[in-house]
């Protein structure tokens, strides 16, 4: 007879619970929802980068048969946004347009051709204003303000100095200062932005299906913008094909669809195309960084000064948070005391930026790890040794009061050094051909496991999970956590199944429907596994308690004596015990269907400090750590850089699912590679140029190297089973690692990204800085 024992899935390689739907075509994304009864929604967008609106003339469009509703900025004077202090955006522009592509009006019509023709008939008249396409231009003294309440086009000025940086530089054996430049990049997730809004005029109710990472935020903003009670709105998140941060805020597509549906008194489906999805933007800002660092001859960092300019685009979005992350996350990876940070988030006439994967941390990490590498070289130190000279010692708090309880960076470095053959291969690799040289570079990175203070501070727990158990013995997890392809539903099923010792097949999950599932803040800043995972564990433990009590009743034993063996519950002394179904039947007696709840809250120690305004940003329950080595071949004649191989180790605390953790690490490293090697939006007079998947050069399988990943488990004391984040922390390290590898290969530092042949050649010819200066002077471009 087989031994009866609980089924464990935590720590195994587990395929995703919703995989079969995705590989068979049965998964329904927003654009797949049957819409024969829906009107087609389309958006009219500004062809001007900056102008006062004189008239939006829709009269000709209204005459077109088949046009059911038209909305403009005049239909909605309510602003929306992310931070309650910075709701700066209207669903459609009023008074002013501020970037090329900004929604101005929208049409709902009986078919696509009619909607398209109606859009063609809309006329926008503006009084054009000077437009600014780079941060420095928008900051010019005579620049016109984009927003009245943001004088000088500064969205947020950040300054802090902790310790005494000047003294720290005086104590250093080497002080070096460099300028770095990272162009704007986009998420380019596979799915177009889409929303199906269904207004029921009989009941005055609105149902919106949307391709979002944050159904709860969308719910709040829909209520504001529509002027409806939240109780009359239902938000459903169907399958979502990626987000990477561009869907961590309510998008105009969702609001406009709902405004159209309300006006039309029916159902409107708006699926924007690839170009519009690009122009909706919310990616990583163009960033200029001046970084200065002091170091002793042993490689100890004495002090850091960092000045960062972010081109934020035309609206606030996540801007304040992004510029604060860029500063706060200088900390929490190494033991640094003295830092001076100057950050400027600037409003410009380009699409608004957002919270791209690695939010705020990536570009500064590129600068930081590049400079560390260069200084190590100048001091004759090994890059690994320099990192080792600056380790944190957990548990600890950083100088800016960030709580670090687990720290697997040393293990990450040890593995990456060993696996890549760093010691034996670096500087000794043969040239693979004429004009070609090989190099190895390394870098580290880190990321948060969810922000400890939520954007919308309501006093509710960070996460709530419900579990329903009914007569059929099926365990149903109800969660608002947005599965967007990262595997959150799989993790929640795993944790619940594991606590109960059941096979995952017995556990089902329902997510992302405000009518059924408990509210969740959303899928961003790698919060779901940590926060919702902990809530799911608590919920499952509560259910287990109910079942144990029922079993004890039935077996006439004490609850403490009940062994939970998954499908069998028995008192220690008994052989036979009860089947799970028998326990469920007993548990339901007198009370009926059981619903239990689990919550998760962060602890105040993790909320960051108050040494400067905005110091809470960066606070988290646990930081992930990563180290990677990148091998490249550089062609000195053409400037072409080929990434040959990557070795990456990531400390995720505990891998709840090794398969999905590996997938996240590989995907992060690769996405960092896209930004480092080829991706860039690019503008001409404010019009986004790389607004399609040919010009916006996402690496193909042909451009992508083998990525050897390794999981480090530091077992965070507060994480679910010890887990921390896995989906973002490895991204940032790739950028400096590859730049450092190029420097190792050809002895030239590339300070401008991406490493396209023209930039690499310019760096080889010593022209990199000239290019940057030219870019600043040129202003428009």
């Amino acid at each position, binding site marked *: 007879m087989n031994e009866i024992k609980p089924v464990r899935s935590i720590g195994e390689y587990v395929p995703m619970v919703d995989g079969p739907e995705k590989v068979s075509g049965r998964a329904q994304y927003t654009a797949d929802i049957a819409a024969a009864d829906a009107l087609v929604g389309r958006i009219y967008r500004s062809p001007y980068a900056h102008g006062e609106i004189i008239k939006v003339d829709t009269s000709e469009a209204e005459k077109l048969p088949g046009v059911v509703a038209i909305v403009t900025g005049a239909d909605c004077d309510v602003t929306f946004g992310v931070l309650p202090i910075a709701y700066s955006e209207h669903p459609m522009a009023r008074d002013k347009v501020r970037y090329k592509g900004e929604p101005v009006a929208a049409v709902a019509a009986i078919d696509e051709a009619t909607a398209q023709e109606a859009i063609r008939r809309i006329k926008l008249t503006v009084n054009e204003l000077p437009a600014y396409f780079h941060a420095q231009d928008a900051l010019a003294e005579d620049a016109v303000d984009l927003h009245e309440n943001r004088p000088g086009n500064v969205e947020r000025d950040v300054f802090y100095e902790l310790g005494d940086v000047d003294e720290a530089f005086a104590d250093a054996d080497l002080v070096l200062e460099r300028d770095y430049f990272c162009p704007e990049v986009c998420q380019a997730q596979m799915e*177009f932005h889409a929303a199906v809004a269904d207004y029921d005029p009989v009941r005055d109710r609105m149902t919106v299906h949307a391709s979002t990472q944050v159904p709860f935020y969308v719910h709040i903003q829909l209520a504001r913008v529509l002027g409806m009670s939240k109780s009359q709105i239902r938000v459903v998140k169907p399958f979502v094909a990626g987000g990477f941060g561009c869907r961590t805020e309510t998008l105009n597509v969702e609001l406009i669809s709902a405004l159209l549906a309300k006006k039309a008194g029916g159902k409107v489906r708006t699926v924007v195309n690839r170009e519009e999805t690009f122009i909706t933007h919310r990616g990583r800002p163009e960033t200029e960084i001046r970084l200065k660092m002091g170091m002793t001859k042993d490689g100890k960092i004495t002090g850091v000064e960092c000045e960062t300019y972010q081109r934020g685009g035309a609206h606030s979005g996540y801007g304040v948070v992004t510029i604060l992350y860029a500063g706060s996350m200088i900390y929490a990876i190494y033991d640094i005391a003295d830092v001076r940070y100057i950050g400027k988030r600037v409003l410009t006439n380009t699409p608004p930026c957002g919270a791209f994967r690695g939010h705020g941390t990536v570009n500064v990490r590129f600068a930081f790890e590049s400079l560390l590498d260069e200084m190590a070289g100048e001091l004759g130190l090994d890059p690994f040794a320099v990192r080792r000279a600056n380790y944190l010692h957990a548990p600890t708090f950083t100088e800016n009061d960030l709580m670090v309880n687990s720290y697997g960076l040393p293990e990450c470095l040890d593995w990456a050094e060993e696996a890549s053959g760093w010691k034996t291969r670096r500087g000794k690799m043969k040239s693979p051909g004429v004009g070609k040289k090989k190099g190895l570079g390394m870098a580290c990175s880190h990321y948060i496991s969810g922000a400890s203070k939520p954007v919308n501070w309501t006093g509710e727990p960070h996460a709530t999970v419900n579990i329903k158990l009914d007569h059929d013995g099926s365990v149903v997890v109800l969660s608002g956590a947005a599965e967007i*392809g990262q595997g959150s539903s799989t993790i929640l099923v795993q944790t619940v199944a594991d606590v109960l010792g059941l096979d995952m097949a017995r556990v089902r999950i329902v997510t992302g429907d405000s009518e059924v599932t408990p509210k969740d803040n959303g899928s961003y800043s790698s919060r779901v596994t940590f926060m919702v995972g902990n809530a799911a564990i608590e919920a499952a433990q509560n259910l287990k308690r109910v079942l144990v009590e029922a079993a004890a009743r039935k077996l006439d034993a004490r609850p403490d004596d009940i062994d939970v063996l998954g499908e069998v519950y028995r008192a220690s002394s008994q052989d036979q015990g009860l089947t799970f179904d028998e326990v469920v039947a007993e548990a339901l007696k007198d009370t009926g269907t059981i619903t239990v709840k689990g919550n998760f809250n962060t602890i105040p120690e993790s909320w960051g400090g108050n040494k400067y305004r905005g110091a809470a940003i960066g606070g988290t329950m646990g930081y992930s750590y990563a180290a990677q080595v990148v091998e490249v071949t550089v062609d000195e004649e053409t400037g072409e850089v080929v990434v040959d191989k990557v070795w990456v180790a990531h400390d995720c605390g505990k891998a709840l699912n090794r398969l999905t953790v590996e997938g996240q690490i590989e995907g992060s490293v690769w996405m960092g590679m896209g930004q480092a090697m080829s991706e860039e939006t690019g503008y001409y007079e404010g019009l986004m140029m790389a607004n399609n998947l040919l010009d916006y050069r*996402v690496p193909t399988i042909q451009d992508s190297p083998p*990525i050897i990943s390794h999981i480090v488990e530091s077992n965070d004391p507060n994480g679910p089973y010890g887990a921390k984040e896995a989906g973002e922390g490895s991204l940032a390290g790739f950028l400096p690692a590859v730049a450092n590898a190029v420097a190792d290969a050809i002895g030239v530092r590339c300070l401008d990204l991406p490493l396209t042949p023209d930039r690499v050649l310019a760096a080889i010819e010593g022209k990199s800085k000239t290019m940057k200066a030219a870019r600043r002077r040129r202003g428009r471009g």
Partner: protein
Amino acid sequence: MSKHLVSFTLNGRPHDGVAPDNRLLLDYLRETLGLTGTKTACDGGECGACTVLVDDQPRLSCLTLVGQVEGKRVDTVEGLAGRGLSPVQEGFHQKLGAQCGGCTPGFVMAAEGLLRRNPDPSVDEIRDALGSNICRCTGYVKIIEAVQYAAEKMREKAA
């Protein structure tokens, strides 16, 4: 726009329909027939998400008119699964070749096309065959493993 009758074999079944001359196969599948497994993810010919097989050859349905498949065999992602998942689908599921799933139907069909003509492809041959498909989640590492898994399953089945 004039409309014509079209007849072709769709996922193994005879299909007759009517479509305007300018109707794209992609829109016909998704909008007219409701076969939404085939995905739209670019404005034309850039990403491979809409890949279907036409007479076993991978084709971008966003660059194919319905009239062009007259008399031919068209296979979409919905047609692969019999009882359970097909070997390629099983590979993408088991090996995590699919994360968000947005590119997956296109990759599955491109891989299916490859394995129908080459049951034992090398890694380079897999890269070649999938070079027109963009994935934004996986870094392609597990997609290659998924195709290798599928190839092995198919060879086992054939043996």
